[in-house]
């Protein structure tokens, strides 16, 4: 079977072929870009947090009333929580990592006022934070119990004597050397010594450039609110959640409580990204289905139109496989033209999205994947109509239609 | 009624030039029943298309019902086909999805008649061809002869000045063919001009006059000699 006669048949039915090609081209454009963006989203959501998110319970406590004593309440809560069976570790904290709410500060790595400022989320935690978050101490030491400052302490500030930072922040502020023992300075040139380095954890806002720059301050959260990050024994989180809430309710009635799993809070922070990914994937699936059905529809129609011609071919000796091959090659040619066009369009659309909106540049692997997918789709779509064409009886040729 | 003067039709493709008609001149008078015969490839179909204003000739002059129609626009030609010509085809060409009533209705719709007038005309036309009771049937429920009657009713419903028939009995058995020819004669005797294209000499014999085409020209130099006489090689009565 030669390609030339098929090509010449196609050029006579230029519009039909052009439409199939155009459809393939647009489908490739949309599918490649959507897949790329969806995968980027999913990768974004799946970034390893460094924390044991699945086992952490978050309780937010908000004190009210004249009788509420903040530091005493925290001490009592911690004692109660740590005594609960199934609880692995607890740290108080002012804010909750990856929750979309938090505080950030700017710090310099030297006393020079013109030195660059590094931004980081900061968390007020105690010496149990490593165990409670499930993060790893990479270098240096943990906070000592006596370092933890009460919220009513005289020297309570955002610049305590000692701090622990993430490796990401340490590497940014002190590139090429160990940050241990170095100081981070605030705007008034007060410094905090870095005593420990966290391997990895995330801060407050999932879409922030400095998401992985985190500082721990050895302090109780300021009144009147406090959160507790409670790490359960593996698998015991859900059973512990109601227990934790009722226990805390009983210890102090002068406050409001809100209990969630960290998993839920993190999922909430990524909700928009996940929704985008779902929308993109839906678009991909729908479009591939439509395109496939469209090709099936057109191919079936062509087969019906050519019944007589196919019968004649069969009568003069074409085998079934020759008929099938004819349709496959014809379809392959149209698909390939569409793919060639679509490749350009896909790159163009990505360029447009990248310049107009905050979309990354296309990774060309996706183009190759898209091409393969559409070739397969083209074959799958035309297979059945081609098989039906091959079943046309040679006797048709002698009949008048 | 119908007057063709040196009509030529040339089809050109990239490779060949085909002269389908060569300076054909033909007159058909009011009330005549003319058969146009000729072998395959003689130009019958082209003659039919030009006579029916389905095609425009490359050159020549064509007057229909006193009006020069050789240079009309597509729209004007549609109008004349609709108002003055009734077509009867070999394969009936009824629309399979429409019932008999709606099939006859088709040209009347384009004519712009109101509903009452259309209904009257359809009833009358179908009664004329003897199918007044089958209006709600689909073409596929009728025999070939009945289908051709519907086609004739469709051709008649608009009161055309002449009927153009293309092998009207080609798809019918001999009994049905005879009935259709009887019907056509009846219509003709009521005053409607008929031009019939056929390759069947038997059929042609029933016309008043026979015109033979050969290679796009009239085979007979004397178009006014009645064909029956000529064919039987007898002097005219």
């Amino acid at each position, binding site marked *: 079977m030669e390609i030339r006669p098929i090509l010449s048949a196609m050029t006579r039915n230029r519009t039909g072929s052009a439409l199939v090609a155009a459809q393939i081209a647009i489908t490739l454009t949309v599918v490649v870009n959507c897949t790329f963006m969806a995968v980027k989203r999913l990768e974004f959501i799946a970034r390893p947090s460094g924390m044991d998110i699945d086992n952490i319970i978050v309780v937010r406590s908000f004190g009210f009333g004249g009788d509420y004593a903040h530091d005493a309440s925290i001490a009592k809560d911690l004692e109660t929580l740590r005594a609960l069976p199934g609880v692995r570790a607890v740290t108080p904290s002012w804010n909750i990592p990856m929750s979309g709410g938090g505080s950030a500060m700017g710090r310099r790595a030297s006393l020079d006022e013109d030195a660059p400022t590094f931004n980081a989320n900061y968390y007020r935690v105690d010496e149990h934070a490593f165990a409670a978050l499930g993060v790893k101490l990479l270098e240096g030491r943990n906070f000592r119990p006596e370092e933890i400052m009460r919220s009513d302490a005289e020297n*309570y500030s955002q610049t305590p004597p000692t701090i622990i930072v993430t490796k990401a922040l340490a590497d940014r502020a002190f590139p090429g050397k160990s940050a241990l023992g170095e100081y981070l300075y605030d705007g008034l040139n007060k410094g905090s010594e870095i005593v420990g380095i966290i391997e990895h954890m995330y801060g407050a806002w999932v879409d922030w450039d400095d998401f992985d720059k985190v500082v721990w301050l050895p302090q109780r959260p300021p009144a009147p609110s406090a959160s507790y990050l409670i790490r359960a024994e593996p698998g015991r989180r859900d059973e512990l959640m109601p227990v934790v809430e009722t226990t805390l309710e009983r210890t102090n009635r002068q406050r409001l409580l809100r209990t969630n799993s960290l998993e839920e809070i993190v999922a909430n922070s990524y909700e928009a990204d996940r929704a985008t990914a779902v929308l*993109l994937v839906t678009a991909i699936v729908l479009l591939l289905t439509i395109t496939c059905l469209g090709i099936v529809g057109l191919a079936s129609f062509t087969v019906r139109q050519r019944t007589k011609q196919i019968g004649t071919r069969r009568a003069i000796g074409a085998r079934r496989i020759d008929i099938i091959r004819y349709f496959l090659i014809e379809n392959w040619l149209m698909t390939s033209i569409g793919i060639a066009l679509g490749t350009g369009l896909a790159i163009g659309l990505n360029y447009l999205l990248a310049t107009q909106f905050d979309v990354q540049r296309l990774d060309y692997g996706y183009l190759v994947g898209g091409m393969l997918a559409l070739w397969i789709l083209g074959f799958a779509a035309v297979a059945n109509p081609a098989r039906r064409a091959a079943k046309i009886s040679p006797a048709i040729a002698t009949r008048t239609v | 009624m119908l007057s063709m003067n040196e009509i030529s039709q040339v089809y050109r493709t990239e490779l060949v030039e085909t002269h389908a008609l060569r300076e054909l001149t033909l007159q058909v008078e009011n009330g005549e029943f003319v058969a146009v015969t000729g072998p395959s490839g003689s130009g019958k*179909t082209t003659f039919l298309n030009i006579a029916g204003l389905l095609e425009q000739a490359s050159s020549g002059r064509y007057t229909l019902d006193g009006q020069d129609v050789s240079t009309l626009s597509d729209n004007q030609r549609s109008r004349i086909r609709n108002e003055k010509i009734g077509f009867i085809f070999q394969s009936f060409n009824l629309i399979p999805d429409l019932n008999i009533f709606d099939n006859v209705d088709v040209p009347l719709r384009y004519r712009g008649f109101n509903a009452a007038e259309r209904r009257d005309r359809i009833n009358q036309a179908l009664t004329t061809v003897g199918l007044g009771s089958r209006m709600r049937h689909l073409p596929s429920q009728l025999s070939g002869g009945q289908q051709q009657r519907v086609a004739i009713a469709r051709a008649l419903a608009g009161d055309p000045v002449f009927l153009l028939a293309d092998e009207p009995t080609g798809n019918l058995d001999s009994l049905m063919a005879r009935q259709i020819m009887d019907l056509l004669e009846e219509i003709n005797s009521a005053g409607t001009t008929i031009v019939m294209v056929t390759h069947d000499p038997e059929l042609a014999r029933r016309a008043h006059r026979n015109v033979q085409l050969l290679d796009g020209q009239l085979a007979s130099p004397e178009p006014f000699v009645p064909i029956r006489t000529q064919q039987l090689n007898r002097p005219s009565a």
Partner: protein
Amino acid sequence: MFLYYLRLAKLSLSKQPMLTALMIAAIGIGIGACMTVTAYLYVLSSDPIPEKSAHLYAVRLDSWGADQPFSRDYPWEAPWQLTQRDSVALLESPIPVRQAAMRRAVYSAIPANDSVAPFFVSARMTGRDFFDMFQVPFLYGGPWSVDADKSALNTVVLSHATNEKLFGGENSVGREARLGSESFVVAGVMDRWQPTILFYDVNNGPMNDVEDVFLPWSIAGRKEIDGAGNTNCFKDELIETYWDMLESECVYNQFWAEIASSQDLEAYQVWLDTYTEGQKELGRFERPTNNRLSTVTEYMEIRGVAGDEAWVIMCIGVLFLIACMVNTIGLILARFVAKSPVIALRRALGASKAQIFRQHLVEVGLVGFAGGILGLGLSYAGLAGLRMILEEAERAARLRPELIAMTIAIAVLSAMLAGLYPTWRICRVSPASFLKTQ
């Protein structure tokens, strides 16, 4: 003739049901996908308070430091919010008809009835003008007094739901509501009120619910409150306490002014510029004067309420529709080509090209209409799906009634557009072709 064409179209479409179903599905899915996104964006970008939005202005002053602009992405913009001291100063301007500084906070609400547990309430600290400025409907009472603003009195306006929770829905005007450790006299109870977009504070979540309680903004200057909105600071200054924060260059207040006329608007701009010029002499406002007045919709656009994300999805949606339309063109062409013999016959029987054209345009229009109905259903489903996967879309992912007719119209128009070429081609069928038996 239109009805005749419509009848022919129905006949023709019922003849090849698979092909018809495919066309309707292609248009329906294309329209459905496109309109789902459009409906969402439409809500996000439409004017939430059209009666007044031309007179309402978000006021911003560029109080940021010389080193860098407030926003790296929009370096020409002034900060989204104001400092405490500038907000206090702005309230002195005589030009706006109404004006209010505001910020978000949280409180605990303690019902008088012991059987009801205390609960969190979101609070908006604002001025009495807020309610008239944004046309807040009241069920009982009304805004608090001018004096309450001036003297930072403990007074409160409750949302409908909060009044239900605290007072069982009774007229609570004049009664005391306990918030945190203090009591507040109820000045008014709002009727149910929830703008789709929380346009008066798009900085702190444009999809948020209206706050549960409203308190005089001046209270925040008298005693410590638990602020709950975005706070941005640039200056190296010592901020250890709540009071340090009030004195600082940190921005966390929103400010709205209702301006009566364009003359007043110009005057107000001059007034603001004069104010910041004065502040420059005190060493503040290090950047070039850049005081901004934006209308409700302008400010929503500046703050990207609709978001880049939505526009990217919109691009995809439009391409999606185009793909579906190309698909439809192919299918229409196929079915029209199959009809060529009948068209030739109709032409022979006297139909003009224009009549054939109209007949088939009606046919594709009918397909479009059916596709539009399907698309409408799919849009409803799509928006319901969107609400399921995106909580913040709860109010915005709705099909506004005015879009229903538009959806159908777009479907019919796109189908006709898709059918234009096939229809044009079918009109060119020669009346002489196909009439002979082949």
